[in-house]
């Protein structure tokens, strides 16, 4: 459905994107994951025809996004990262306005947004500016869907949104995917990676890896361990000094450790005990997307 082929883009001295290639088949939910400044917004803007690449091509539903940008504009639903609707218009007015921008009516495509809009209907006359973050998100999604697009492009739709609303939002995306809509979404939250069919890890304009979350973590090539103890910070400092370890990072309540080769755990226990860490639990673990991303970043 979308093919990004060797795309590069510079802003003056800054390389925003370096030779990025991605392909997203029809009906897939693809997540672009990376921190601020990684190039997510730049790539998405190119897909939706707002920016031109320095080199490389992007096709959308078989059409080139540069020469045939009108086709893209008719068939894409886009939610920019800054999208915050018209704050001074009501929920209903916003929706009706966007429907007319896309030369359609709310009635015609109501079935597509019925689920989501149903939750907003009690507040139809409230101004968008007075909605909660989660509700704004839902309304923005409705506005992006109102013309029945083939593809949804959502730039960081869940940033700054609380955990409950984020979860609801992903539920909605899942339902939309089931209706055959291809979805391209970006996020800085690693825990959302697992909710995508496939993901791309973007850092400093480079696509570090792409594939399904399972495939991506499968080729993590180092032994990975978790260490748990009561006082993780002194332990972290102690572990960093050990030469056989590759990296040590805090990871929730645990510390995640990568090693150059398989560790002799009993020996490590003994060494740590000697240094005064007697309550350390050490065990090998399966890597997550976050472990891999951090590994690739170094």
């Amino acid at each position: 459905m979308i093919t990004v082929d060797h795309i590069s883009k510079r802003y003056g001295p800054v390389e925003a994107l370096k030779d990025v290639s991605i392909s997203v088949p029809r009906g897939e939910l693809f997540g672009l994951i990376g921190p601020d400044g990684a190039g997510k917004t730049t790539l998405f803007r190119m897909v939706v025809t707002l920016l031109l690449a320095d080199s490389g091509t992007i096709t959308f539903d078989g059409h080139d996004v540069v020469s045939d940008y009108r086709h893209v504009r008719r068939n894409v639903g886009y939610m920019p990262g800054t999208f915050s609707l018209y704050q001074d218009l009501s929920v209903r007015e916003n929706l009706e306005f966007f429907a007319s921008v896309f030369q359609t009516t709310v009635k015609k495509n109501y079935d597509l947004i019925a689920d989501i809009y149903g939750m907003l209907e009690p507040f139809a006359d409230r101004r968008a500016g007075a909605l909660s973050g989660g509700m704004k998100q839902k309304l923005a999604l409705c506005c992006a869907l109102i013309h029945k697009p083939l593809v949804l492009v959502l730039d960081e739709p869940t940033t700054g949104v609380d955990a409950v609303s984020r979860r609801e939002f992903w539920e909605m995306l899942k339902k939309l995917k089931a209706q055959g809509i291809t979805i391209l979404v970006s996020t800085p939250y690693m825990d959302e990676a697992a909710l995508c069919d496939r993901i791309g890890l973007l850092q400093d304009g480079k696509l570090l890896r792409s594939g399904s979350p399972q495939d991506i973590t499968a080729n993590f090539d180092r032994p990975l361990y978790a260490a748990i103890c009561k006082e993780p910070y002194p332990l972290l400092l102690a572990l960093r000094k050990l030469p056989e370890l590759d990296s040590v990072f805090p990871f929730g309540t645990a510390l995640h450790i990568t090693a150059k080769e398989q560790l002799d755990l009993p020996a490590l226990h003994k060494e740590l005990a000697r240094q005064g860490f007697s309550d350390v639990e050490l065990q090998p673990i399966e890597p997550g997307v976050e472990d891999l991303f951090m590994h690739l970043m170094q």
Partner: protein
Amino acid sequence: MTGAITIHAKALTKRFGAFTAVDAIDLDVHAGEIFGFLGANGAGKTTAMKMLIGLLMPTAGEARVAGYDVYTQSEAIKRSIGYMGQRFSLYNDLTVLENIQFYGGVYGVPPAELKRRTDSLVHDLGLKEHVNTRLQSLPLGWKQKLAFSVAMIHEPKIIFLDEPTGGVDLITRRQFWELIYAASAKGVTVFVTTHYMDEAEYCHRASIMVDGVMAACDTPAALKEQFKVKTMDEVFYQLARSAQRAE
């Protein structure tokens, strides 16, 4: 935690007209503790935090921060805490050094002492080659770490962090938390809000506000056990999905 109590609140309440933004919350945070302050948008998090740092007068209840009363001694509170706002609180058009000097001056750090602290700060963050670089050309992650260190320039006993890691990359986020750990190890109280639920696990204790009320407050491990779930994200979801009100 056994350290002295540095942040204390009892039945702390803030009403705006008929709306109760913060409804009688109780809170005791100890020296050296990393305290996570979580809640959905509109749960009353920001309001509660503003009362604690002396920016907003409570309607009822009591609160003492660093031993000072929030009603009568807000100036003393402001002098004895550090604060790092959402996203970024430094000046982009000033250099690293100018930013440090400015904040050092604001908090009245003596010049000789400021120079010593500046040197060690620059050394710790590995910014030696960039002291004369304007902030706008530094990566976001570096800026966040610098903002934290600058907020600590007057060596406060308590630091308040409002969503300090938004948008920052994975490794920098960890480095940021290591700065927090280091501060805590020196006995500094860290009061932090975040949207990343996995970060709640880094805290010694975490509280979750729902509809202006403190719905839970315990160690992450105890909270997860209480709700019989594996992650803080689940704990949060269980509590916050019943929320009635929004922003």
